[in-house]
């Protein structure tokens, strides 16, 4: 009898500690995830109570949907450029700040600052900068690139998004690289200095191999972040001109809610997730293979 009571008591604590989390996670995460896959095989419009299972038709349709693949290509190329720029800048900042510099914490705080601005506010803030500040600056200095009519050409919308995401991501990634630099034992570089290695040799042969875990992580964060763009997309370019600067999420959203094709939208989002997971898997495979351990 005693042991039954003990098991019951133990069960009760499992319930208290894990119950709420498991319940909520199942209802609002696991079931919607399974539901998304399920609906992707139906022709549900999201309004009626009935729908049919139409097999892989939604997927076949997605593969022939030019607008979707244009959005995909836009998102991937925008993501690639933003990831490269923000990581390069972040790495340089972290490198400079890894050595003794006056007011170190002040620089770190200011560089991180853009990260606290997010969502649609980020997009609107920059729309002002592009459409007003850039234009006035371009007219004053006669640099036509700045004075162009922003968001009226596909290129300008594309580069605008790259600039905004580089701005907002670099400071955040800088902090992660800084943590990576701090974890490198100081003796390594000191020994190399004693042996007469130049700064560049130390960077290439000691720092970069040692900081590879941070590179893996920063690339992962930056890829995910940029691939999932939505709020800044609708607020900054809103797809202009002619839906050419539309990210994949915008495309899915429009399919599911503007044209009421929940099933079709679900299929699109399943393909999108698969592509993101594939890209990040390849990235983690490539960069983590180069990680070294002491």
């Amino acid at each position, binding site marked *: 009898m005693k042991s039954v009571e003990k098991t019951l008591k133990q069960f009760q*604590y*499992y319930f*208290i*500690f894990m119950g*709420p*989390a*498991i319940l909520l*996670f199942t209802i*609002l*995460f696991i*079931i*919607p*995830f399974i*539901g*998304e896959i399920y*609906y992707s095989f139906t022709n549900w419009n999201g309004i009626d109570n009935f729908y049919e299972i139409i097999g892989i038709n939604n997927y076949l349709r997605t593969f022939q949907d030019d607008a979707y693949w244009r959005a995909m290509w836009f998102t991937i190329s925008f993501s690639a450029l933003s990831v490269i720029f923000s990581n390069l800048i972040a790495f340089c*900042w972290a490198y400079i*700040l890894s*050595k*003794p*510099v006056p007011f170190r*914490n002040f620089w770190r*705080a*200011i*560089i*991180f*600052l*853009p990260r*606290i601005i*997010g*969502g*649609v*506010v*980020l997009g*609107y*803030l920059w729309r002002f*900068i592009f459409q*007003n*500040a850039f234009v*006035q600056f371009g007219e004053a200095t006669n640099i036509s690139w700045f004075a162009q009519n922003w968001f009226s050409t596909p290129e300008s919308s594309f580069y605008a998004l790259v600039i905004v995401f580089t701005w907002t991501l670099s400071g*955040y990634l800088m*902090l*992660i690289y800084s*943590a*990576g630099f*701090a*974890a490198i034992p100081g003796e390594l570089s000191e020994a190399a200095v004693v042996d007469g290695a130049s700064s560049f040799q130390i960077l290439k042969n000691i720092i970069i191999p040692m900081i590879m875990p941070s590179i893996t992580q920063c690339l992962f964060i930056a890829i*995910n972040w940029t691939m*999932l763009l*939505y*709020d800044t997309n609708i607020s900054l370019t809103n797809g202009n001109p002619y839906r050419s600067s539309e990210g*994949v999420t915008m495309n*899915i959203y429009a399919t599911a809610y503007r044209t009421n094709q929940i099933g079709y*939208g*679900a299929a699109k*989002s*399943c393909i*999108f*997730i698969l592509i*993101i997971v594939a890209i990040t898997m390849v990235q983690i495979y490539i960069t983590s293979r180069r990680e070294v351990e002491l």
Partner: protein
Amino acid sequence: MKRSENLRIGFSLLILIISVTIVIIPLVLVVINSFKPYSEIAENISALPKEFTLRNYQQAWKRLNFPTVFKNTLFIAVFSNIGSIIFAGMTGYWIVRHPCRFTKVWYLLIIAGMSVPFQGIMITFAKMAGFLKITNHLYGAVISNWVFSMPMSMFLTAGAVKSVPYDIEESARIDGCGPLRTYWIIVFPLIKGTVFTIASLNIITYWNDYLMTQFLLTKKGLRTIQIAMQSLFNEAFFAWDTALGAISLSMLPLFLFFIFAQKQVLDGVAAGAVKG
């Protein structure tokens, strides 16, 4: 040696000053121009206000319905965080301290949630929210935030619990201390540092969320700052002067938060980096 060191510091400072200037210019321009009437903005963006005005802020305050949207956003951010601390912490703790098949499976399931972005479940999530009738209630957004921040928060707190020596809990248990008291009185104070750094990062995420919130809160009185900004920019009579007041106003709360919690936020990123 000394000279090259000075040269390096000088060069570093130069690069940092240039970088910081570029980073901060957009923010400074928005703030400066938010105090100008539109004619002055159109004339010269980089000039300081000649005719200092608070009209833009008054307009923005009224059109955003700022007191209400601020209250809503704050409510969501605060209660999302409290719940996230309680649930992610307790679950993470129990999973670490009671390794068995059941806890391991759930640990993996929740962690796997990190690789499924909201975009992957949003359509069915919105239907589910409608079905559960949690739309158009602030607590609906709060509960959803608990769920979507759970993978990361639980992962980090589980990591923190692992570094707490088990002996302390063991002796507490022998002294007749139940699991709940053990967690809250002994373990929680020891992992408090990690918990608060996660919390200060989560605040930024909750505060800036748009995509999920717009599925849940559609009633006018329940708008968050982000939703109100979006509808302000979609309204007719759009003018940059009021818009700039609105942008500055909506950035201000998090900016103040960042000034006070700077250390936690910056450490939080680093902590997440080392453990992630």
